[in-house]
């Protein structure tokens, strides 16, 4: 509402304020309550046109190398392109798409060999050309180039031999990405990388094939224009793109996106059913009007808002329950406590804050039990490591025990922190929050609750993007408390939850997602070591244990595990994609 909502990072579903979330009761765990909790029926009727009303801007870019956010995946990535690995709606591990199977790991985890399918064709004007391993090599290489501006290559692919340490001015050859023949891709790594060995980080849009012979000319400038001329491998393509340039009839920024069937797509090589004949996406709708149009109309699906506005939510979950589907989003919401700023440089003050916050009341500000499960630690339900961190009950810390807050426990920690009365006696504490609803209400509720231990917030409410890029993610701004934060998975591996947020090596002058500036050498070492582990079960245990211990440090007070509530018109079977934070999956949804 990304989706002001305009920026809904795939994983950072929460990072962007427009995301809200769905159902599930307090302490209800990762499951969901109300609506159709599972994608029980993913077989559908072929044909028809579906319309989506987005309330936020739209996709962020046409360039596959840039796609990262939930709306990008939902509305263009998954319908129009194929990656090495893909995700069926209920998948929690990557499924071979262009790849024939999972990576073959050798050389102590430092060599990954991926065989790819042959015969996958591009859309016009390259309809006679098939996907080669070299096209994926080029696609991954261009993700390191500044003109593409990819946001995750340096997080997941930096251990590939020859990968640049900073964005290159142009697309450059990377020696560790090799394509010895048309159907073989080899990745040579400096160290074993768990998220590559399991295929998780190869199910991201950087592995969407890009034919160098066609795209190189568009990648030459300061800003790549390949997106506007791209060729498609998925079941759909942007309307009119067959000419080699996407016309206005197919895409107008923040206004319209129309997808039609891709004649080059061969269903026999793909797991996606792609029921709809045409997908029309309108941007800029009023969230309440758009939600009502979907529920009252025909052949429509909810757009980029993770939950409908409060005015519609109650109606949806009572009289229109059959039109809703609900799933955990794989994201959470938390307040970040800056450990470099007083009074949160004191662990006992942080614990007091965790104890005093009424997480139940905070959830109420977003819509009540419908929007998610009260959190007891950082890794959300459904993610590897969730159970190891204590599941729904959590690690068992007394300051997290009472979801309604416990002033007595909070004051006991304040006393330990050196405040004999149990009340903070310092000055006002600088806090910056999102000024849009419902994040604004959450921050104001937090402001009231903290008064119980004498903490008075000097609360500044600013636009969502400003909150991040000028305050909370800028260490020199010295913001003590950021109440409106959130994070979400990139895929079903908890590295994407733990490493960015808790590892001290990620503290940077701008765009700093380690907003608490957690920087404990022992934890940093454990987090970094976990990234090299290639066994999935072992990884889950490591990250679960880390979550348990990190929760005890209270760098962040996690108060909600989000759900996603999607919904459609009566004649639509809406299928959510769990990999994509529970957003509607347009290649598995269908008309009834």
């Amino acid at each position, binding site marked *: 509402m990304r989706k002001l909502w305009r920026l809904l*990072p795939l994983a950072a579903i929460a990072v962007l304020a427009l995301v809200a979330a769905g159902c599930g009761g307090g302490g209800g765990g990762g499951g969901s309550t109300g609506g159709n909790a599972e994608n029980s029926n993913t077989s559908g009727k072929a044909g028809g046109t579906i319309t989506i009303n987005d309330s936020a801007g739209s996709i962020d870019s046409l360039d596959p190398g840039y796609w990262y956010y939930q709306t990008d995946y939902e509305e263009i990535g998954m319908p129009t392109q194929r990656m090495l690995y893909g995700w069926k709606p209920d998948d929690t591990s990557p499924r071979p798409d262009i790849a024939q199977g999972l990576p073959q790991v050798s050389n102590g985890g430092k060599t990954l060999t991926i065989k790819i399918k042959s015969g996958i064709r591009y859309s016009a004007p390259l309809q006679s050309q098939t996907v080669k391993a070299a096209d994926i090599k080029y696609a991954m290489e261009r993700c390191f180039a500044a003109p593409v*501006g990819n*946001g995750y290559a340096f997080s997941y692919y930096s251990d590939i031999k020859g990968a640049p340490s900073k*964005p290159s001015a142009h697309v450059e050859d990377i020696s560790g990405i090799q394509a010895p023949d048309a159907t073989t891709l080899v990745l040579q790594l400096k160290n074993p990388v768990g998220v590559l060995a399991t295929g998780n980080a190869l199910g991201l849009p950087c592995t969407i094939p890009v034919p160098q012979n066609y795209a190189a000319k568009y990648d030459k400038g300061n800003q790549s224009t390949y997106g506007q001329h791209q060729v498609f491998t998925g079941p759909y393509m942007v309307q009119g793109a067959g000419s080699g340039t996407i016309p206005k009839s197919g895409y107008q920024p*923040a206004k319209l996106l129309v997808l039609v069937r891709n004649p080059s797509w061969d269903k026999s090589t793909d797991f996606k059913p792609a029921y709809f004949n045409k997908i029309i996406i*309108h941007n800029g709708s*009023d969230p309440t009007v758009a939600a009502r149009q979907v529920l009252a109309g025909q052949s429509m699906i909810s757009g980029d808002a993770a939950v409908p506005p409060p005015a519609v939510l109650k109606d949806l979950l009572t009289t229109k329950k059959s039109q809703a589907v609900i799933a955990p989003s794989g994201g959470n919401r938390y307040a970040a406590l800056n450990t470099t700023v007083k009074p949160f440089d004191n662990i006992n003050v942080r614990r007091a804050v965790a104890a005093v916050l009424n997480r139940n009341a905070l959830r109420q500000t977003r819509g009540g039990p419908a929007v998610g499960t009260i959190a007891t630690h950082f890794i959300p339900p459904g993610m590897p490591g969730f159970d190891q961190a204590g599941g729904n009950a959590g690690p068992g810390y007394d300051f997290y025990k009472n979801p309604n807050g416990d002033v007595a426990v909070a004051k006991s920690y304040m006393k330990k922190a050196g405040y004999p009365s149990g009340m903070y006696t310092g000055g006002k504490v600088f806090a910056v929050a999102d000024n849009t609803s419902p994040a604004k209400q959450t921050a104001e509720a937090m402001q009231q609750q903290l008064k119980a231990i004498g903490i008075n917030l000097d609360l500044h409410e600013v636009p969502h*993007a*400003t909150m991040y890029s*000028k305050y909370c993610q800028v260490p020199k701004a010295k913001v003590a408390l950021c109440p409106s934060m959130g994070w979400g998975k990139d895929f079903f591996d908890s590295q994407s939850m733990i490493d960015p947020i808790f590892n001290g090596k990620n503290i940077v002058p701008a765009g700093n997602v380690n907003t608490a500036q957690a920087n404990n050498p022992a934890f940093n070492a454990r987090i970094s070591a976990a990234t090299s582990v290639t066994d999935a079960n072992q990884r889950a245990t490591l990250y679960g244990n880390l979550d348990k211990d990190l929760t005890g440090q209270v760098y962040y007070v996690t108060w909600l595990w989000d759900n996603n509530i999607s919904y459609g018109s009566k004649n639509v079977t809406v299928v959510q994609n769990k990999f994509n934070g529970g957003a509607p999956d347009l290649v598995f949804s269908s008309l009834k």
Partner: protein
Amino acid sequence: MSAYIIRRLLWVIVLLFLVSAITFVIFFALPSADPAQLRAGRQPNPALVEAIRHRLGLDKPIYVQYYRYMKGLVLHFDFGYSYQNNISVKQQIFDRLPATASLAIGAAVVWLIIGISVGTISAIKRRSMFDRVAMGGALVGISAPVYWLGLLSLYLFANDIGIIKIFPGSGSYVPLSQDPSKWFTSLILPWFVLAASFAAFYARLLRGNLIEVMSEDYIRTARAKGLRERRVVLRHGIRSAITPIVTAAGLDIGILLGGAILTESVFNIPGVGRLAFDSIQNSDLPMIQGTVLLGAFFIVLMNLVVDVAYAFIDPRVRYS
């Protein structure tokens, strides 16, 4: 008159120059979001942020950025490229301008017809039941927020979510060139919603002016000369009383041509107002500049039109 118009047009250029400079300063002086960071993803590599900053020219001093922007604008009529989608600002604004113009001009026609008619009748039939009801209604019209009125009209009359399904609802706008009939029907609700408060204000304004004018000596003289009452009101009364209406209409239409954000949002009309709103949310400076300059241009242009129109409406006005 020609010299006057040329002189005013030159002032338009100066004003637009000032507006662009002020917008630039405000963007950098106030705590708006960092465009480079916004484009760099959720866990950005610092070098990537710097690379984007360099590509966007944001690593240059503000005056250099402003000089480059103005150079492109003056020499090539180039408004630059959106930080958000790297598509020409000029192209995006001109793509959306017809929708905004359709909304603003159509609404202006509605509010002028209603406002002038009601205002005139109320003035002539002062203290009548019509006058009391109309002026009471006008107060409601002025007080009702356009966003609320838009939602209310959709819930009442839209053919998708309305109780009485009469008019096309939100998102139904099609360009005039594509389907004139659908264009017209899709804009009926937005026109009336946008026009409501203006019509109410104009009716009250005209009523007050006309009552005052109708008590002037020359009106009495006209009546004494035996002119028919209709002619007295239309030729002598309204012509004089309408001058402030022309002023207000010129300014209001100018403002709305720069974008009617709330109406465009409620009815999902892809106009300039919505574009401006999104660009502010995204710290998209080139787009903010483009939409602000467009709005300023229309306001000063309509001011000029109003001033010129005075010369034709009011015989006392002469420009040299």
